[in-house]
């Protein structure tokens, strides 16, 4: 920790703060929004971006010590591939369960 240059330390600290803030914003959105389809937005995007920021911070620390962050890269790739898939499956399940939505249906697509 003591051999880090000032720029690397500032970059890692900024990435950590941004990642933690985005993770918290995603959870607040999931808690505070009104219906399920609004709540689906917050964690699938903001939380994934927050974890990406934390992984970038860890990779920057590894690079400054001369290591290649293969583990972090694998975790980031896996999360960024699977987050849209799981969100799509949850939205399909919510449509099937007919979870209530606060949004009005579009004019040209009235169901039932």
């Amino acid at each position: 920790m003591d051999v880090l240059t000032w720029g690397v330390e500032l970059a890692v600290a900024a990435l950590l703060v941004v990642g933690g803030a985005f993770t918290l914003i995603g959870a607040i959105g999931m808690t505070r929004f009104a219906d399920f389809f609004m709540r689906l937005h917050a964690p699938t995007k903001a939380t994934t971006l927050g974890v990406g920021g934390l992984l970038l911070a860890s990779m920057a620390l590894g690079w400054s010590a001369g290591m290649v962050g293969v583990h972090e890269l694998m975790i980031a790739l896996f999360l960024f591939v699977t987050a849209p898939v799981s969100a799509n499956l949850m939205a399909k399940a919510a449509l099937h369960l007919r979870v209530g939505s606060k949004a009005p249906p579009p004019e040209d697509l009235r169901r039932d």
Partner: protein
Amino acid sequence: MIGWALNFALGAVGVAMLLCGWRLLRGPSAIDRVLALDTLYINVVALIILLGIQRRSSLLFEAALIVAMLGFVSTVALARYLSRGDVIE
């Protein structure tokens, strides 16, 4: 500076996990609870990454990868169970 940022990120992820737990306990429908569980898994991955940065251990990242895989598989299984009534046809 990194120590301060690490403490801030640990606190933020901890509060986020508490909010996910609140939604998991309270969620009006079952799919809300599935969403809260998925977010909780992603927050656990973030927490393990932060612990890996703090402890300087690369062993914890493999644990984070395993937790991410388990979270994805459990979310897919629960969502398919809720939408089809069956996990594997």
